[in-house]
């Protein structure tokens, strides 16, 4: 899966779960100020992303520092790369 495809999947999952307008889902969009999401939504975001990408999201510092949609894209892309590498090693 390409990085663009991963970003599209992230955006699609979030748009569905949080009823977001795709037009406001720019990488610079702040979850709190631009997308109107709060701490309860952050919990559910983890649930839906774990279900979508089939890996665990732990509350590491890098995850807790996520403020924008672009931050989340970068985090998930990194985790996807880690998971793919681990799968490659295991194979």
């Amino acid at each position: 899966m390409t990085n663009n495809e991963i970003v599209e999947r992230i955006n699609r999952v979030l748009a569905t779960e949080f009823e977001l307008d795709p037009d406001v889902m720019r990488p610079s969009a702040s979850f709190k100020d631009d997308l109107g999401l709060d701490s309860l939504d952050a919990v559910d975001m983890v649930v839906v992303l774990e279900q979508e990408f089939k890996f665990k999201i732990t509350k590491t510092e890098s995850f807790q520092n996520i403020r924008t949609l672009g931050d989340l894209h970068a985090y998930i892309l990194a985790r996807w790369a880690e998971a793919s590498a681990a799968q490659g090693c295991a194979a």
Partner: protein
Amino acid sequence: MRRVVVTGMGVVSPLGIGVEALMEGLMANRSGISRLEVLEGIGGLRPRLGGVVKGCDGVHIPRKYRRSMTAMSIFAAVAASEALAQAGVDYERLSHSRTGLCVGSTLGSANALQTFFEQYLPATSIESIRSTEFFKIMNHTCAANLAQYLGVTGRVVAPSAACCTGCQTVGLAAEFIASGKQDLMLCGGAEELHPLAVGTFDILQAASTGFNENPESSPRPFDDARDGIVCAEGAGILVLEALDSALARGATVLGEVAGFASTADPGNPASPSPQAIAVCMRAALDDAGIAPADVSYVNAHATGTVLGDAAEAEAIGEVFGAGPLVSSLKGHLGHTMAASGTIEIAACLEMMRSGVIVPTRNILTSSCACKLRLALTAERMSFTVCLKNNFALGGVNTAIVLRKHNDEQ
């Protein structure tokens, strides 16, 4: 003690959304009962009928508030908005600490509880549980959701007494206002249909099972062929306030909550005795300072069960004789349980305003109520006092006395 009046009403019922839809359906003698797919294929379950709400998905409610709501909170929010609009109560008044909310349901959402355990049980895991799931399951889900949605900052309480819930919320809210603890309160009950309630009444041998092929013929309150309850859903919300407050702001007074009683019947948790019902009705009349002879109409609880309707008919006969007209609205609506009290109070106040009594639907012959003045057709009757009954599983009985308001009182 301050006098307490109703200045707003909102209803979501199997007959439609709004008080107008309710009254139009009742006056046209329509049934809100249909055969439900959700009840098919459940092992051992015999009833197939229910009264469901159509076209009330709450999409207009912002997601921030809707995410913790299930159907019953949405019904309550829609009914509350209607009631507040009629009462002319604005956001500023809602956010005042002397404005409160008293809204309950039979259970927290059984649908949400099912969702939780469907995710929890297979692997004993909470990993896929959403953050808002518990807000749908907790007992005060409707009250809490409404308070968040409407910005209420005063008392938020959530009585729960199954089918007496709606009636209790009105009585308790009225007492909060009468005693001066609050000036204005939203009150009422809400219910969403789930096989849990239908199945429970089936297990108790109290659900209608003989009319599955002819849904609109059941339930049959007081009728000789009655065979049980038909479960339904909806919400009824009232705006109560102190009479002086209503008059001061020029609100239209829809009626007065003149008396209330909530009594217990420890004899049997599933079948009220005529004596206990009579005690409850007399206590409500005493609370109102009104004699039985002054009551023109009794809106019966009468759900269509063999034992319950007979017990209520006997009790009404004992307290009132053949004086007041008597009818039940369950034949049109089914049993909206926690919502039934306030949906039916709204209908009573509309009947008082219009001077037309809605008859019981699906009644042909009644041996159990033969000594009562049953309203069998719509009857035009100007009246100023009525009494509304509700009885609940668990041995809780309630009665409310409503009085028409006029400026000379």
